């Protein structure tokens, strides 16, 4: 149905260190603000029920599915997207480099969300077991890799104790 409240709202967010102000509809999702208004198309939309995790971004230090957040809810937040992990022309973030080294991506569509989710895991638990990695990534669907090399890539960043288990 047509939204009865056509009023627009002004939100200010910092994305990858850059401050943006945007006028949004009340119903606009954060993922659409990032993709459509800010042109940050590395964050993907793979479903409409918050299952797939392709839209995962970092909001104030937490990995969050940006399809479950209204743009107005993010007002004042500091957000990191996949585009913000490695500085332009600089070295890849260790999670990005591990995904490349271990062939942890094929079509690449789930990859940004998967990297953001893996980054969060390693921030919380620098020493995850295979089981912890698999459990933590359960909110992100990959249809190409069978997860084998994704788990391997994340394991390569875990401490020596769990790397070869």
């Amino acid at each position, binding site marked *: *149905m*047509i*939204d009865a409240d056509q009023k627009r709202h002004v939100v200010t967010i910092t994305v990858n260190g850059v401050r943006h102000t945007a006028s949004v*509809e009340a*119903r606009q999702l954060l993922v659409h603000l990032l*993709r459509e208004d800010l042109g*940050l*198309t*590395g*964050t*993907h*939309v*793979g*479903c*409409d*029920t918050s*299952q*797939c995790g*392709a839209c995962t971004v970092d909001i104030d230090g937490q990995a969050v599915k940006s399809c479950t957040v209204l743009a107005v809810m993010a007002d004042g937040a500091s957000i990191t*997207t*996949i*585009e913000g*992990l*490695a500085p332009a022309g600089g070295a*890849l973030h260790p999670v*990005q*480099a591990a*995904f*490349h*080294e271990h*062939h942890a*991506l*094929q*079509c*690449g*569509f*789930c*990859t*940004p969300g998967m990297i953001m989710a893996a980054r969060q895991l390693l921030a919380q638990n620098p020493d995850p077991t*295979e*089981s912890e*990695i*698999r*459990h933590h*990534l*359960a*909110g*992100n*669907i*990959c*249809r*190409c*890799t*069978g*997860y*084998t*090399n*994704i*788990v*391997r890539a994340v394991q390569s960043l875990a401490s020596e104790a769990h790397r070869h288990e």
Partner: protein
Amino acid sequence: MSEATATKYVGQPLRRREDFKFVTGKGRYTDDIKSPGMLHMAVLRSPHAHAVIRQVDLSAAQASPGVRLALSGADLAGKIGAIVPNWIIPGTKVPDRPVVAIDRVRFVGECVALVVAETQAMAHDAVELIDVNYEILPAVIDEEAAIRDGAPQLHDNVPNNITTVYKIGGGDYGKVAQEADQVITLRVTNNRLIPTCMETRSILAEPDVNGTLTLYLQSQVPHMHRRWIADTVGISEHQLRIVAPDIGGGFGAKMHLYPEELLCPYLARFLGVPVKWWESRSESHQSTNHGRAHTETLEIAFRNDGKILGLKVETLGNVGAYLSNMASGGPTVNTINFGTGAYKIEHYTARSRVVVTNTVPVDAYRGYGRPEGAYIAERAIDAVARHLDLDQVEVRRRNFIQPADFPYRPYNGPATIYDSGNYEGCLVKAMEAINYDARSNERDQLRAKGRYRGIGVAAYTHMCGMAPSRRLSLLGFNRGGWESARVSVDSGGRVVIFSGSMSQGHGHVTSLAQIAADVLQVPIENIDVVQGDTRQVQAGHGTFNSRSMAVGGSSVHVSSTRVVAKARKIAAGMLEVDEADISYQGGQFTVPGTDIPPLTFGAVARMAYVGHKLPDGMEPGLDETVFYDPKGMGAPSGIHMAYVDVDPETGIVEILDYVAVDDAGTIINPLLAAGQIHGGVVQGIAQALYEEVSYDPDTGQLMTGSLLDYAVPRAEHVPSIRSLFQETPSPTNPIGVKGIGESGSIAAPPCMVHAVLDALSPFGIKHLDMPMTPPRVWLAIQTARTGASR
């Protein structure tokens, strides 16, 4: 620029050259592309499985904010051609399929009307305001129910809902069934699946002022899409440019002609502005083709030593409401031609009937028919082993096609030929890797303690890269079997490969360049790969049927070889020696045994373009295009083994180990090949344990309409897959490759079923249908226990 290289690239686990853009969020998928002034299309889909359309009232939608256009099927009648299949098995009755339903809908999700508006949200808002008056008709969703007397009929020209009857076989099944020690029957189902590419479909159509049209489209087959869309919309192929950017997975779902792929180009030309459409996930479940959906009845005649003498197969392939692109070929040629699998079953009779129902159309999904065919052969041999209480490995050995039998024509049939293989080699490797004897002992010991573990085995073989072209016409497959490659060298020696293959995550930018680098003997960094733009790539058939290395890779090999042959002639002229005296190694043309200074590949390339010293009659340039039509098809094969634990109290199946040994001939890049196996196996495990499309049998409502209800496995539901290779080169192409992409999803379903049946053998359970969900496994155990205590 460095030119010399002694490295052999083929066989190396090179990291992918395409990764950087994907890991940094710089991939460019169709929905990432915007065009100035573009409008957005949204589609109204039928909420009913079967109904007459009485009236479509668009007035409220037309008055909705931002709406430019609202159309019903009747408005479009005569303006766009119908959707016609590309593979029509001889004798098939093809139902009419308008792009948008006009007077009747036949599945939940069928296009009924559309809106074009300024934003996607406005288009979706307006679609909600379209008022359709339906008269609901009885629906039928099951293939066995659909062919019964009195079943609802979908199409006037398809009596009994059967579009196609196809038969294949050889020998004399009736005779061996009489002579056999035993004959058993088995009914198996191949559950309906949703391919679930992580990127849903989307399209952007851009009209140009000169009458041409650019279509951004995730297509596995850009040149085929160009032909189909040009034919249907009424434009010539050269006026239509298809650009397939990065594609978020295909698995067969993105190689067919869908209504939206015709609507966007039509609307863009009609309105004179770009038109975009994006499919939501829930929309995808009811509009993008499903896969599998078979019921098979098997009759197996065998000796008491486990040798199968004959096999009789009845297949019913559910293709949904209409015949999609390849739909008459999947349950027929692709399935029952391969029903004898890796085994010498010389007496075979098989019939397949293709059935329409009030469901989403069913078409290719990773393996298309070969998983169903392998499932027939594997469930048959497993049933024999279980019936005779023989070892599952030993029974397979007694029936295998042997290395000396190749090239082998199963059941002396007319169409199928397996070029090469060594199944025993794969079997031994798999048994060693999974530790077969030790695990068997462990299983037996744990059984005494009430723990239920099982080992599953599956063997497979099939054929990849449908070819040669002239053979395809006999099957009603209305396309060629060739692939095109252009290897273009610039005047400094840098190379671009223009390939008709189309990566959807396969890594062709790496693998095709590996093939070319070895032939051209230049560093791989000097080779770029272009795919997916019909304005740049001369021609092609695309990526499906595990054909990209076998056919696409071979075409790159042949064109690279021609480039070197021409360069050698030019070098001979430049060095003023006989061509036969020239040696080309490491990117240098030399004359061995002389002190003539070597010529670099780049220097020869420059001469090819300045043309000052070319041999008499030679055209300038160093740029070769081939249309490579294979002489035959490669037959990948392999053995997969799984070790599982089944909890009898919950019915939960835990996979403790999974080993895949695959023989895909020469492996171009073992890292990428293993990645294909990992993903394919997990899709196969998903079919075996988790995924099934569910319809309400009475109303035809789709019950698994979103990723909340359709159980795509997550990382915590599957194990790490162990992938090993055996390389028996294919004699059918110059690089010896077969095919790898579909092997995992072919082998894993029967492997998993056999593992669970092995675990449950103490209960006397001899068959389970997929998906083996906890309730289904639990119920089977409870039923067996109740029966045993009776």
